[in-house]
């Protein structure tokens, strides 16, 4: 009798509530937002009245935080009528909350959005970002970057095609995931993969930790794995896969070789043994303290390593088969984009312009960051010199491969979990590539 009355109440309620249409059905008008007005000339921001510009960025580490704070200060000094309200979040926290933030009428004006189908593609598909091609023309942004870098921030407005179509934002910093080394331990940096492996073995034999690795957050594994993958697989095959081009695959012998190689490194003890339980930041700090010979990390930690290690830290591209044809994971950091809900797109665009102009390039160099812009000044001291040279060399050799997690909307989770399982020996290299392929196919079929 009790159960019956509950059931009756529930049924009564659902009858009351009635039946609606498909969820999200009324929102079609929202999709594929186009700018309400097209910018034709540089807007005068000083005449924009009192404006609060809300910005979400992920520059939380020392050198990157310093760079943004400096530029924000300068921008507000230039335009006293603009107040920047900044929210900074770690990469991981930003990724988890960016879709929630970008939806809704009061989305932040400027948001750093991760490239690729997982984040940018989804948000573009929902019409939540404002294309910036008009501003690009007005401010001549296209001359600031190589087309390879610009293309990473492009999507077709239905979110289907990645790497072409509308431009949605600009990145400040170039990124290379490379190898930092401790000059006290590594006197002559290895130039080929074979030499690198010999050096790792040497470190191991000396009782030291060869490579420090922190993978509790899951995403760092992508960087370590793909750095190795770049040396075993053809760079074009990797690019084709990430951009989901015809005929691309993950489950092939070259990719298996990459998986086998990094698993071999784990088994040989080339990483600290607790890597899956170590946080990313403590890992590079541990390297900075001299606890390991090498660290595979992005150039975003350059400033902090330089501050802690001074001239003891060196940087090189991941050694591969041919020192003259380097291949390295990288590209550019998360682009600053304008939400379509922003009521002050002109100010937002001026801000993005300010973050990526020649003055910004100089500030980036001064704070030990790597500018993505062409013709940026070259740094004169410390590890930043090596980073800048590597960037030059890599771009000359056209050796940049894009991050694997760009591939599909769920790939960030798919691949990072799979890599953790591979490294922990829960999956064999062949199971790993087959499993990732399956996740990819599931998306490709429903496309």
């Amino acid at each position, binding site marked *: 009798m*009790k159960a019956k*009355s*509950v059931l*009756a*109440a*529930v049924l009564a309620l659902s009858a009351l509530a009635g039946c609606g249409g498909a*969820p*999200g059905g009324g929102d079609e008008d929202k999709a594929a937002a186009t700018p309400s007005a097209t910018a034709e000339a540089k807007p005068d921001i000083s005449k924009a009245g009192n404006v609060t510009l809300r910005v979400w960025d992920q520059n*939380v580490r020392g050198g990157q935080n310093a760079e943004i704070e400096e530029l924000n200060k300068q921008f507000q000094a230039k335009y006293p009528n603009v107040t920047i*309200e900044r*929210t*900074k*979040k*770690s990469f*991981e*926290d930003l990724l988890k*909350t960016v879709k*929630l*933030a970008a*939806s*809704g*009428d*009061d989305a*932040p004006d400027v948001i750093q959005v991760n490239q690729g189908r997982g984040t940018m593609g989804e948000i573009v598909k929902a019409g939540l970002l404002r294309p910036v091609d008009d501003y690009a023309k007005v401010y001549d942004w296209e001359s600031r970057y190589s087309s390879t870098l610009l293309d990473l921030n492009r999507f077709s407005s239905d979110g289907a095609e990645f790497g072409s179509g509308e431009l949605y934002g600009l990145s400040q910093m170039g990124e290379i995931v490379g190898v930092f080394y401790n000059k006290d331990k590594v006197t002559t940096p290895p130039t080929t993969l074979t030499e690198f492996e010999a050096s790792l073995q040497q470190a191991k034999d000396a009782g030291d930790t060869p490579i420090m690795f922190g993978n509790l957050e899951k995403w760092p594994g992508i960087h370590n794995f793909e750095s190795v993958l770049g040396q075993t697989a053809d760079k074009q095959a990797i690019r084709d896969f990430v951009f989901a081009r015809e005929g691309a695959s993950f489950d092939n012998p070259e990719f298996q070789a990459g998986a086998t190689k990094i698993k071999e490194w784990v088994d040989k003890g080339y990483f600290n043994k607790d890597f899956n339980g170590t*946080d*990313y*930041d*403590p890992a590079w*700090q541990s390297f900075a303290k001299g606890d390991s010979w090498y660290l595979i990390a992005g150039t975003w930690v350059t400033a902090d390593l330089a501050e802690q290690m001074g001239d003891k830290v060196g940087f090189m591209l991941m050694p591969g088969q041919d020192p003259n044809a380097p291949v390295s994971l990288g590209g550019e950091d998360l682009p600053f984009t304008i939400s379509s809900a922003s009521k002050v797109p002109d100010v937002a665009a001026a801000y993005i312009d300010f973050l990526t102009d020649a003055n910004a390039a100089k500030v980036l160099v001064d704070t030990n960051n790597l500018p993505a812009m062409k013709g940026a000044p070259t740094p004169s001291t410390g590890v930043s010199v090596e980073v800048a040279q590597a960037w030059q060399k890599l771009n000359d050799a056209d050796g940049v491969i894009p991050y694997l997690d760009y591939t599909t909307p769920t790939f960030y989770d798919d691949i990072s979990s799979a890599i953790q399982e591979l490294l922990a020996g829960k999956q064999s290299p062949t199971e790993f590539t087959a499993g990732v392929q399956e996740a990819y196919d599931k998306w490709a079929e429903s496309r």
Partner: protein
Amino acid sequence: MTSRAEQTLGYVILGVFSLIALLPIVGILFTALQDPDGVAAFGSLNGLHFENFKTAWEDGNFGSYLKSSIIVSVSVVFFATLFSILAGYAFGLMRFRGSTVLFYLFLLGLMVPTEAIIVPLYYDLRDLNLTNTYWALILPQIATSVAFGTYWMRTYFRTVPRSLVEAARLDGASTWFTLWRVLLPLARPAVLTMTVLLFMWTWNEFLLALVMVSDESLRTAPLGLSFFQGRNTSELSLMAAASVIVALPVVILYIFLQRHFIRGMLAGAVKG
């Protein structure tokens, strides 16, 4: 004799588990006081650096987070308490058609996890332009709190001697007067316990605050702490100091009212 040995055993069990309960909390206090530039390790004490709290407070924007938490918690507790008293009174001391079914609905609400309703709550409140407002945190939490509170107050009103209510009625008192002037003064312990529990749950709420609010100025303390730790994973002493800041208001309340709190918990759970 055996009883002496058993008494000792009782103390040992209680002592050991009390220690387990306390150690991590003491550990985080010690960590919060560590030298921020020293070698940080959880639980060791190497000085009394109270400035960590200041640094965390300023870097982490905790003033604003605590303000949001207070606004949300106080509103939720106030309205949920008021509504629960009224509804509990009706269920406890009045007869009307359908009261059983309605009461079962409230009981059902006790078992519905936030995870089950978070999806529609988010999308529907967004369509009403209520996400990114305090309302998005306050209204759903009043609703979940009212499910518990109504049950709680009904239980209390059922224990009220009938003669009291009858006497009031014979004196010609209205139901409203009877509630506020006759019954409620006696209900103070029950109400106090309920408010303490509701305050604790609201203050510590995480998922709703994560999903509903992305505006920095509306963010509540637990969320603020979560993002703060994301940015400072390697600054142990700062993270610990921030944790203490977030936990402290409820812990202080608990220390002052722990007797009510525990009695309430036991009464609510056992007496029924």
